[in-house]
């Protein structure tokens, strides 16, 4: 059973976002990392890059698969988790903590409310696996 923290918001592309003020921290869910297998590489954008919601902002690779990363909300990148360059395996071991991927300044008011809650995401992943 995958881990889904209560305090985060979730997208259908299996990204999570935690919000403080107008800043969001984004990563991929435990469910996503599990589906992907051993993560070997994470490609992330540069600080200052701007993205629409659902736009691809990078990719995450396992040995035999590549998954695009999609922005859960529109925003501008203000910080990138450089440590994932050397330790991509953190995406497997700590997807909601050490393996956060980017921090964004959210440019679209109310966007977070359109995302799923933890309970909704749990139902969503259950439906998807069935």
């Amino acid at each position, binding site marked *: 059973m995958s881990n889904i923290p209560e305090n985060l918001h979730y997208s259908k592309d299996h990204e999570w976002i935690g919000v403080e003020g107008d800043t969001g921290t984004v990563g991929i869910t435990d469910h996503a990392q599990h589906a992907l297998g051993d993560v070997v590489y994470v490609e992330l954008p540069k600080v200052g890059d701007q993205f629409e919601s659902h736009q691809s902002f990078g990719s995450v690779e396992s040995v*035999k698969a590549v998954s695009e990363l999609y922005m859960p909300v529109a925003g501008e990148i203000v910080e990138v988790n450089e440590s994932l360059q050397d330790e991509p395996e953190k995406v497997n071991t700590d997807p909601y903590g050490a393996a956060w991927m980017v921090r964004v300044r959210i440019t679209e008011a109310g966007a977070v409310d359109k995302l799923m809650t933890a309970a909704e995401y749990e139902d969503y992943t259950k439906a998807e696996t069935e």
Partner: protein
Amino acid sequence: MRYIPNSPDERAEMLRTVGLNAPEELFSSIPADIILKRQLDLPAALSEMELLARFEAIAAHNTAARRPNFLGAGAYSHYSPTIIDSLIQRSEFFTAYTPYQPEVSQGTLQVIFEFQTMVCQLTGMEVANASMYDGSTSVAEAVLMAERVTRRRKVIVSPALHPEYLQVAQTYVSHAGIELAQTGFDEQAGRTTLDDATIDEQTAAVVVQSPNFYGCVEDLESLAERTHAAGALLIVAVTECASLGLLRSPGACGADIVVAEGQSLGVPLGYGGPYLGLFATREKFARQMPGRLVGVAADKEGRRGFVLTLATREQHIRREKATSNICTNEGLIALIATIYMTTMGRRGLQEVAMQCAQKAAYAARRIAELPGFSLPYAQTPRFNEFTVRAPVDAAELLRRLAREHNITGGLALSRYDPTRANDFLACVTETNPRAEIDALVAGLKALTA
């Protein structure tokens, strides 16, 4: 058919086992209207003796294969140690598949790892792949990679790049939105020039061959400097890898991508293929490389082994977003090159290069002394090829040299450039004894007297 183990009786029995009566029923899922109702119109089967006699007779018409040869221009006659062909004919090498299952492919994987290492050492680069089809497609792939790395869409190519390499690059980029432009060419020096009007902030890369198509060694260091000042990548193409035993490596001169034709490393001339594309670059660009890569891995017990790695760049995973469409490359030819570089080794590679350069210098000097002959780029350093300006039409001169003196004297440059009617490109390697060079010189003299 002797290559099919099961006898007709055995096959009949197998058919019955799967519930069929006749071989035609195996194809019942093919609509009847597209089943071929006749035998293929092909020659009847030959026995081994008949077949060999037939091919020997055909091969006898390849008269050029038996002559002393001074033709280079992208394919070179070099000595190839005997052990190479006997080793590559081991079933374990030539009948194996691509090493996707590492536990039963360690031989091939270790060879590729050794090959990658030697290509890096020879070119002065940090990473090399498991091979491309040949030098020409390596150039094309390097151009596409430069666009991925820089996100710029203009590539400037030296006019002294092998003309067929340029043609291949043009085909490859024709749908990639990349514009190919030309660098300058110093007709006095026979070298590539790069001016500020040509290279700009839209330029992804500059492509230069050294020694270039006319045999001149390029000043790579200053080309690298100018290229890097514009934020572009320098792609260096090498058609004659024997030169790397003597010349400063492209990597040491500042190249960002080095592509080469590896045929000189023990591979037979073989009428143009299979040859071997070498592809090397800086470590920071490894994930943008085309082709397969082998890396070190360990099993649970910590034993060292090798695996195909960084495969997410490739077509079987990333499909239309892959760095290249290449799948099958030139595995067995990379093995030839690896055994060649191992057998010749550090000293042999240097000695081959030195002999090539010395013999070419001798030949060039002797030809330049002939009445009416000159070397248009005599002042520029060269390796084993040089451009000769004859007093007469070069194509006709070389034709007569072949017919009347039984020597293939080089390549008439009019093949690629009609304005160079009297120019030809001569190549001398360690396989040309002095007597052959003297015969070449004597033949040229006799035909122009």
